[in-house]
């Protein structure tokens, strides 16, 4: 029995929690300057895990930039958003990131979270915050599979979860 997917724990990524009025011009400008992307629609990711922005809630985004660029990105955001009601915080070291890659990556995630993961319902570029077994996490679909983000305090738990879930035969439910 071969594994359903390859699980890799990604290296440290630069992550910034950005909260405020997502419709404001200053917020759009700050996101554009940091990632080159527009503010994503609900349940979407713009860009990718290396440089991108993830919709987290109606007033929260997760901005991802290279780890070394976080300080200068934060400084630029603070400058752009001065006078606005906002929050921009470096959360890079509070997160663990995993990549689930392979033809059956959908099966691995479907064993852990209460989400309809069929390709018709969850396409590339879609993102979702949900529950993986007992912990909160966010993930999005890309060409190679999925990236999963969770709190680093539960990173080892997530690592075990994903690897265990990958040890199965495909059900064929995802084609």
């Amino acid at each position, binding site marked *: 029995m071969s594994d359903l997917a390859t699980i890799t724990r990604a290296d440290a990524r630069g992550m910034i929690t950005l909260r405020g009025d997502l419709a404001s011009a200053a917020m759009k400008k700050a996101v554009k300057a940091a990632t080159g992307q527009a503010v994503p629609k609900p349940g979407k990711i713009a860009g990718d895990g290396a440089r991108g922005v993830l919709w987290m809630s109606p007033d929260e985004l997760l901005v991802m930039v290279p780890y070394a660029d976080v300080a200068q990105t934060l400084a630029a955001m603070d400058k752009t958003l001065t006078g606005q009601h906002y929050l921009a915080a470096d959360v890079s070291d509070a997160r663990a990131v995993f990549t689930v890659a392979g033809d059956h990556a959908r099966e691995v995630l479907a064993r852990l979270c209460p989400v309809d993961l069929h390709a018709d319902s969850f396409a590339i570029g879609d993102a979702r*915050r949900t529950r993986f077994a007992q912990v909160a996490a966010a993930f999005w679909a890309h060409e190679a599979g999925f990236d999963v983000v969770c709190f680093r305090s539960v990173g080892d738990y997530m690592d075990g979860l994903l690897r265990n879930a990958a040890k199965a035969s495909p059900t064929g439910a995802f084609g």
Partner: protein
Amino acid sequence: MLTLNCPYCGVDAEETELSPGGEAHLKRFGPGSSEEAFEGYLFVRENPKGVHFERWRHAYGCGKWFHAARCTMTLEVFGTYPAQTFEPPKDIKDKITAKRPGWAWRDFGGDGA
């Protein structure tokens, strides 16, 4: 298993992704109110067999509170709507009226619709 559509994310969230928040549309009675009103605010709750309005929080998702209208007997969900309101929106009340003619819940429904 209850599946509610989060009005903020637009996703269908399963019950285990949500936190229950008890009855919806409670009016707060604080200092200066009568003892009966305060007791009612703290303790008196509906326990209907049928149409009910509840608060839920999309705890594992966007983290926002929202309201849900559902039937406690059949688990049918009539709809969900954002929490920034004092009463259910008209389209949800109309939907309930179509399915449960004559329904009433606290100040809503019944003859006043």
